[in-house]
């Protein structure tokens, strides 16, 4: 969920922008100039994938995939998500400019946390059952935490926003399960077809 | 008319690219795709390379460019044995490789910037790079395309623009990897026209005999990880002095 312009109080905007800038800088430091084409193409793939709508009962939801991005990119997910969100703002007017910091933090921090907790599963020796389970947890918790972050950001805006914040968290619940199932299958697919994509992050250094 | 085809070095001189005993196996496979492969490209030669899908033609090009490291064998370029990445960095500036998919090659916003990318990397200043790019675009018939967005070009325009980007580096040798894939007849003819007028030795990978017969003089085929120069049809029996280089013709 993109928080739009004009909603958050200035001190929240400034705080989240400051944190995001720090994480993005840390992420950029871990990217070698020579890796940038690869990073950009992966970011583009995620941008496109997040436009995919899947049916969820009577409505359809779009994929988030921040967890999967986190597992592949680690802390480098911050610059990647920042760019994707900025492009979504430019091309579709999602979110906006001043809320870019908050939205990036809400999406990328859960991705990074999932990588910290579960990134080890990308190692080639991990069994397929474990990868499947980890995939579900990554998809589930990255969206759950993103929902909690959106809720918290809104709640920090003042007591008046509590009901809206709670609803925003609840709205993420069906998406959590879908993302869990999806990320699980997707991780298994990548493990089978292109294991080096995962080994790059779980190991020390990626191929490029 | 001296069209540059006069020199035909046999022996040590005039050898541009020489591969000896190259062996390569794709990661995760058991059977090597290249197995004791020898190949020589002489000055002024234009070679067409055919072979079934997955026979290792593209890998061969990538080995010549140092993009893929062979398991065994030596690569010599312009008489120098290539050992390290550093050796290839220099060699790459003088060998132009056209990729199969032009979307892999064109990445700058505008055509002009993309064509100027190589010259800029070679240390040319902005003005020179611009001039070279404009001149090259004119030469391939893309004048007026300078400010066009690369993503918005048609498939044929993309291919010609990618070729211009390669030619802008003024390479001594051209390697073209299936340059006709996905092109219509008109663009194919345009490409043939450009290639015939080019005064450079080249190797062209293609599945189209007709195209190869118009652009190259020797046909090589790839089988079981090796290249045989006499294995296929000869469009032409001699590989030296060819005075008709500028106009397309047939030798029946």
């Amino acid at each position, binding site marked *: 969920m*993109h928080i*739009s*312009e*004009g*909603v958050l109080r200035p001190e929240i905007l400034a705080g989240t922008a400051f944190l995001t800038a720090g994480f993005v800088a840390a992420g*950029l430091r871990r990217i070698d*100039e020579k890796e940038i*084409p*690869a990073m*950009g*193409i992966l*970011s*583009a*793939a995620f*941008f*496109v*994938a997040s436009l*995919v709508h*899947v*049916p969820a009962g009577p409505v359809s939801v779009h*994929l988030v995939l921040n967890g*999967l991005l986190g597992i592949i990119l680690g802390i480098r997910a911050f610059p990647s998500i*920042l760019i*994707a969100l900025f*492009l979504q703002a430019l*091309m579709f*007017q*999602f*979110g*906006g400019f*001043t809320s870019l910091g908050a939205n990036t933090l809400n999406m990328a921090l859960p991705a990074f946390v999932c990588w910290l907790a579960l990134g080890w599963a990308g190692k080639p020796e991990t069994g397929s059952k474990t990868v499947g389970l980890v995939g579900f947890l990554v998809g589930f918790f990255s969206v759950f935490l993103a929902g909690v972050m959106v809720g918290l950001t809104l709640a920090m805006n003042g*007591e*008046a*926003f509590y*009901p*809206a914040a709670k609803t925003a968290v609840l709205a993420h619940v069906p998406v959590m399960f879908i993302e869990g*199932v*999806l990320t699980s299958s997707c991780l298994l*697919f*990548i493990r089978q*077809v292109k294991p080096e994509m995962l080994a790059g992050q779980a190991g020390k250094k990626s*191929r490029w | 008319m001296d069209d540059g085809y006069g020199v035909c070095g046999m022996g040590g001189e005039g050898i541009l690219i020489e591969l000896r005993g190259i062996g390569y196996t794709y990661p995760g496979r058991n059977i090597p795709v290249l197995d004791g492969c020898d190949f020589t490209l002489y000055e002024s030669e234009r070679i067409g390379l055919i072979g079934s899908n997955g026979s290792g033609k593209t890998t061969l090009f*990538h080995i010549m*460019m140092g*993009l893929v490291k062979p398991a065994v064998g030596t690569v010599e370029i312009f008489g120098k044995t290539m050992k390290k990445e550093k050796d290839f*960095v220099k060699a*790459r500036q003088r060998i132009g*490789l056209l990729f199969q*998919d032009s979307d*892999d*090659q064109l*990445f700058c916003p505008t055509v002009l*910037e993309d064509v100027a*990318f*190589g010259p800029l*990397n070679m240390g040319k200043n*902005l003005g020179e790079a611009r001039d070279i790019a404009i001149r090259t675009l004119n030469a391939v018939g893309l004048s007026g395309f300078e400010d066009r967005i*690369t*993503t918005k070009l048609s498939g044929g325009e993309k291919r010609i623009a990618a070729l211009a*980007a390669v030619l802008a580096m003024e390479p001594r040798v051209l390697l073209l990897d299936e340059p006709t894939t996905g092109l219509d007849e008109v663009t194919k003819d345009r490409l043939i026209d450009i290639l015939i007028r080019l005064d450079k030795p080249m190797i062209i990978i293609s599945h189209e005999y007709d195209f190869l017969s118009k652009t190259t003089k020797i046909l090589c085929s790839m089988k079981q990880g090796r290249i045989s120069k006499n294995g296929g049809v000869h469009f032409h029996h001699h590989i030296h002095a060819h005075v008709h280089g500028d106009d397309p013709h047939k030798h029946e």
Partner: protein
Amino acid sequence: MLNEKAIDHSSLMARFDPRLKIIGMVLFSVLVAVMERKAAIGFAFLLSITMVFLSGLKFRDVVKGLAPVNSMVIFLWFFLPLSVNGVDIRILGPLTASREGIDLAVLITLKANVMMLMFISFAATTNVMTAGQALACLGLPSKLVHLFFFTYRYIFVIESEFITLRTAMAIRGFVPRTSVHTYRSYAYLVGMLLVRSWDRAERVYRAMICRGFNGTFYSLSGFAMTRKDGVIFGVMCLWMMVMGYVEWVVKAF
């Protein structure tokens, strides 16, 4: 299907120096973000609507651009009038809402739309690539700028691959439903998209190495600022000072 927006280069905003346009947009957005008085936001609205007018946009496109922001605004309207304590006013039958809650919702609605109007006038008149170059000129880290370029460049390539894959699935009778089969199929679709992109990334990098890439990018283009750019920017700044004056000095409404 994604489409690169065609930029109408004849409008005043389209010819406005992109660097100044970005600085103006950023200053304006930050200023409105901290404002709390409706009168001041009214002045801000005058500036942003003028900018939209100078962008030569169709009314329909402006409304379309405002839609995403307002979906969030509408979402908040469901809660804020009820969740803020204050003087209750009757709306309909037994339904009441607090005056303060409505005030807050109105304020957010105004701010969101005023800021978005300015953003639209920027986004709709600036080529994405130009925006990236302008950001580079303004000192954004070069790695981030290059990441931006590559991401944007390959969005369209990957999207067309996505459409090809999805069509291939549809041809074999795939109909999306709420089922595990659907989600697994989508997972494979996404996985395939990522794997193909990974391979493409390698090919692109190889193609760049072949053309002598060594980690440094050089740019051909530069921007030229004219006196007209200075005038537009100056007027924007003056007007923003008026906005600040109304907000913090006059303290009206």
